[in-house]
C-alpha cells in the first residue's frame, strides 16, 4: 500500500495575524491537557475515597484562613509568572524594541 510522506503545506489562516492562528493552537492544546488532568484528578479522588483513603468532604470544604495564608505566596508567584509578560518588560538588561536588519 502506498504511504504518503507528511505534507509540509502551510496551515490555513483565519485571523488577520497568522500568529493568532498559531497561538490559538497552543491555547487549545493546553486547554485539552488541562481537561485531561482534571479528569484524572477526579478519577483518583473517586478511587481513593472508595478505598477509604481520602475524605472527599474534607477535601471539598472551604479552606480556613490559616491554609489560605499559607498558600497565598504561591498564588502570588503564579500570578506574577502569568501576568508579568503582559507588561513587556525585560528581565535582563539589553537592547529594546523591535529590530530589523532590512
Amino acid at each position, binding site marked *: 500500500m502506498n*504511504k*504518503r510522506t*507528511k505534507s509540509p503545506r502551510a496551515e490555513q489562516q483565519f485571523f488577520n495575524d497568522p500568529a493568532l492562528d498559531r497561538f490559538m493552537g497552543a491555547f487549545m492544546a493546553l*486547554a485539552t491537557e488541562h481537561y*485531561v488532568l*482534571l479528569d484524572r484528578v477526579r478519577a483518583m479522588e473517586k478511587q481513593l475515597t472508595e478505598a477509604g483513603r481520602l475524605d472527599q468532604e474534607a477535601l471539598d470544604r472551604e479552606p480556613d484562613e490559616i491554609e489560605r495564608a499559607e498558600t497565598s505566596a504561591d498564588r502570588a508567584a503564579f500570578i506574577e509568572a502569568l501576568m508579568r509578560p503582559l507588561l513587556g518588560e525585560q528581565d535582563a538588561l539589553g537592547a529594546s524594541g523591535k529590530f530589523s536588519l532590512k
Partner: protein
Amino acid sequence: MNDRAFTAAQDFLLSAKTYWSTTMYRALRDSHGEEGSQTVADVAQAIEDSTLYQVYAWYERHLQRMKYAGRYGLVPYHNERRIDLLSELDSEDSECTQESLTLPAYYTVVDIHQHPGGVWSDGIAGFVYERGARTTTPLAGAAEKDVHERFTDLILEEWKPANILDMGCGFGKSTQPFVRRLPDSTVEAIDLSVPCLRLASYAAREAQASNVRFRQMDACRTDYEAGSFDLVTSTMVLHEMPPKTIEDLLDEAFRVLTPGGRMIHLDFYCLPDVFRRFIHYGHARRNNEPYMQPFAELQLSSLVSSKGFVDAQVAPFQESDRVDLDGNEAWRFPWTVISATKPKT
C-alpha cells in the same frame, strides 16, 4: 496514551464541537441577520472579516484537526495499538483487495475530512475512521436511531430489494442495516479503501452475516454484469467525488441496475438559503473536502435524468427527530436523498 486520557480529551473536543455547532453557529447566524444577502458572495462580504467568523472558522478547522491528529488524536491513539488492532484482521480476506486496481488521483491527492493519510493509506485507517464516525453528527443522541438506520427505513418503506449494491461502503456502516434487516437478500458492498473493507468484512464475520461480500472496487467501474441489482445505493460518497467521476458512477449504477430497479443515494446537497450555502462551502474548504462545493452546485436532477433514469427526485432528509429541516438553529449537514428509477423498457 492511556484510554482514560484519550477518552477525556476526545469528550472535551466533542463538547467544544457541540458548543461550536449550537451557540457559536447561532451567534454567527444572528450577526448576519435575516435579509440582505442574495448570493454566497454577499454573505462573505457581510461577515468574513468579522472576528466572530474568524473564530468560528478557526474552531471548525482545528477541532477536527485535534480530533484526528495531535497528542490525543485518533491517529496516534490507534497507532499505539497498531499491532493488536491489525492482528484482529489477520485472517486473510482475499475479496478485500483487487490487485489490478489503481486508486484514482482525485482520491489520493487530499486527506479527506482531515484524516491524516486519508481513509486508505494505512492498515489501521478503518479503525480510525470507525471511531471518528461515532461522533460525526454530534447532536444526535446515543439513544436515537442513527442516520443510516433512518435512511434504510426510508428505502424499506418502499419495497424490499433482493439484490443490493452499496457503493463506497467504507467500514460497512451504511451496509449493515441492509444486511441485518434483509437476511434473505444479497448485499454487495464495494469501496476503494482496503483497510475499511477489511474492518467491514471482519465485523460481518463476527455478526455471522453470510448475505454480504465486501470487495475492493471502483464504483465507476465494477465487475458486475448488467442488470445485477434492484437497488444501487450510496451514503456520503457523491460529495467526495469530482463531477466527472459522479457522472461515471451514475452511468455505472444505470448499467448494473435491472430495468425497473432503483438508485437511492444519501448525501449533502439541498441548501435552504444562501447563509447555509456559505457555511457549507466554508466547511468544505476547512474540512478538506474539495469536491463538496462542486457537487452542491451541480444541477443534480437533470444530470441524473440525462443518464437515462426516470422519476429523478432530490429531497431533503431529516437525519434526526430533533432537527427541523427549514430551521437554522444549529449547524447540520444538508442531508439529501437523491433517487431515480431505471426505466422498465
